[in-house]
């Protein structure tokens, strides 16, 4: 069985799960199919699923970025802090994006140019950027932003859709083209498959890695600002722990944690599966803790099932010969 066939099978499985979950939701709740509920279903996790798109590229490239949630927190805290200092809101937002870019440069420099494992580098980032965020806003909740900023996160701007959802849909399309049609996407796969072979083929592997980490942090910063707009206030622990949900979405989408394989269609389906599962459980009054356990179980399955299948497959082959 070739890799493509296996991946297709994984996506088929996700699609089947999605159909079953949606079917149950429709059967159990009359509210499920309403436009309001569908928009709400996306809106509640919109920041995470935006970050999951770039995380897909990072993991396929054989790296990981654990610092995304801290960068989300840092970006919103930088904005809040500057706004309090009297900066106009637009400038505070631009500054927050720039801070995100710097965080990405730091992650990328240590990973790509010094050669440390991204797991360690971005773990340090997770702690360090969160620390800076907490220093900036201390133990307060900073609110009172201009109305247009809050509306950005809370009011539909495009028909029933909020700007966050439009950004997500646009980014999904862009990332799909980048990953599956562009030179950068090709290099991401090559590097994830075999970094040495990429280097021996003259690929500027360090530059590609740096670019990915900068993109990851800047998108995380944007997601953090959208989150701040949605909540209308900012605290030091904003988005804490989000990185795990983001990585869960990517891995459940069939992206190999070892890099080199996976695609955006799978991640898109996995996002739909998780959101619908949470939404359905929410409508059925299942508590948040149980929801988390169910999604944890799903992740374990997503890692176990393909590996077990491969193991059984090779054992079987070994017996034949």
């Amino acid at each position, binding site marked *: 069985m070739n890799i493509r066939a296996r991946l297709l099978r994984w996506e088929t499985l996700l699609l089947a799960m999605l159909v079953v979950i949606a079917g149950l939701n429709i059967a159990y709740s009359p509210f499920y199919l309403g436009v309001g509920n569908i928009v709400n279903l996306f809106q509640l996790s919109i920041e995470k699923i935006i970050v999951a798109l770039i995380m897909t590229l990072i993991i396929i490239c054989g790296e990981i970025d654990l610092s995304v949630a801290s960068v989300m927190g840092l970006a919103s805290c930088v904005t809040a802090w500057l706004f309090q200092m009297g900066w106009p809101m637009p400038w505070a937002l631009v500054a927050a994006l720039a801070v995100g870019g710097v965080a990405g440069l730091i992650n990328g420099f240590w990973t790509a140019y010094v050669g440390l494992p991204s797991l360690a580098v971005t773990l340090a980032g997770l702690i360090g950027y969160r620390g800076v965020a907490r220093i900036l806003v201390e133990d307060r909740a900073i609110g009172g932003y201009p109305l247009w900023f809050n509306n950005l996160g809370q009011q539909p701007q495009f028909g029933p859709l909020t700007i966050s959802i439009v950004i997500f849909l646009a980014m999904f399309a862009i990332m799909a083209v980048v990953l599956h049609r562009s030179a950068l996407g090709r290099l991401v796969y090559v590097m994830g498959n075999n970094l040495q072979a990429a280097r*021996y083929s003259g690929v500027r592997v360090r530059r590609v890695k740096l670019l990915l980490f900068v993109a990851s942090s800047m998108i995380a910063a944007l997601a953090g600002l959208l989150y701040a707009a949605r909540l209308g206030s900012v605290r030091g622990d904003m988005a804490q722990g989000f990185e795990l949900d983001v990585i869960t979405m990517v891995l459940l989408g069939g992206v190999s944690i070892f890099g080199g394989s996976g695609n955006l269609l799978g991640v898109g389906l996995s996002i739909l599966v998780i959101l619908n599962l949470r939404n359905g459980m929410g409508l059925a009054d299942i508590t948040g803790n149980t929801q988390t356990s169910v999604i944890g179980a799903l992740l374990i399955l997503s890692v176990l099932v393909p590996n077990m299948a491969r193991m059984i497959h090779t054992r079987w082959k070994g017996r034949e010969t």
Partner: protein
Amino acid sequence: MSWTAAQQRPGGAATAPPILEMRGIAKRFGATQALDDVSLTLRAGEIHALLGENGAGKSTLIKIMTGVYQPDRGEILLSGQPIAIGSAAEAQRHGIAAIYQEPLLFPDLNVAENIFVSHQNRGVVTNWRKMFREAEAILATLGVTLDVRSPARGLTLAAQQSVEIAKAISLNVRVLIMDEPTASLSAHEVGQLFRLVRDLRDQGVAILFVSHRMEEVFQIADSVTVFRDGRLISTRPAAEVSPQSAIADMVGREMGLFQRRAPAPKGEKLLSVQGLGRTGVFSDVSFDLHRGEVLGFAGLIGAGRTDIGLALFGIEPATAGQIVLNGKTETIRSPRQAMSLGVAYVSEDRRQLGLSLPMSISANISLPVLSRYLTRLGLIRTSQERDTAEGFRKRLSIRTPNVELPVAKLSGGNQQKVMLSKWLNTHPALLILDEPTRGIDVGAKAEVHAMIGELAAEGIGIILISSDLPEVLAMSDRVLVMREGRQMAILDGGAATSQTVMTAAMGQEFAA
């Protein structure tokens, strides 16, 4: 610590009782017969040298003795009793130990722990004092002074070798295999090591000594066995063997296995290398290469041939010397830069360094020059990629149903052709081929050889690094011979024979 000592020596070797007898051993890997009906006897109190070119079967035999591989046929007798060596642990129990070029110590454990690492029953609480005492006792019998409490990290290579030997002695070693133990030692350290080895011999240990250094072999060995192409060619007392006769046994195969390439007319000078070196790896390499010329790089594995290729391709840039390409002095710092100068390097390790196995043939071929296949928006024109791949599929007769197939699905020979296509697609002026026919079948080999001839005829300058001596001789206009990071000779087509090349590669005085 005790072992029954003192078989008398010297001269007693030939009559001493055999300890380990290998009878009719055969081992096959795919299409390669690594060992073919090999019978070798190791006797108590004898140092037995094993010689042979790369791929002659020495390593395979050692791995069978140490339980890493199982032989397909043949039997192994220990003191006259047939035994099976199913694992490294079993080899240890039989008293068979091996020492390699790079000692395999645990750097963070102390010397005593390293000596007893595989067989000390420590119980719940380690009796450190007893362990240190015993370790010191063993080292004392070797006449080595080392602090048994210090970690192995930071010991000199020679000291690490003595720890390995102490480890072997603590296992009641009866057969000690030494696989190029001197390759990274200084002359003084070699002297120390040899004193230890002679002591062990005098205590009745059978020693198998593998080395590429002729002078050392004749300095220490009691008998000499030569392997060639998986067969045992000769076993003789050292006194009856000369370096020349040993080399003749090592290379004495039929020539004409490959058609010798007709020498093409030399073009203008393409590359001139002066005093090239990289600290600690190779030094003082100088040669010229003309367009349309094939320059062979011969030498044993680890002689530094690949490292020269890596320096020219910018993977591991040179630290000394000068590279003049097309009349311009260049400092090559990255593969990207090397490619822009028209240098292509086809790696010896196609699985790890050469190809992205899960990706398609066409994606692999376009990778180094991907920018050629992009639209203005940076998207890949896959149809153009396919056209290129189809072209190479015809030109090199790559056998595949289509060029969208993952490279992993192809045979070794076809993978090699994909790799060659990938680099020909960069339109190189200088093509460095590192072991281009390793592990591929005879038919594919002949095709690759024909390709090399065609490329040279088109005016590409080719450096052919190969451990396959007949191949180097058949394909090259001239042969550069390396040994331990130094350039030994550049032989012209006429002067390059297996005898002269091997003589230089083994570090013998070169008379001609």
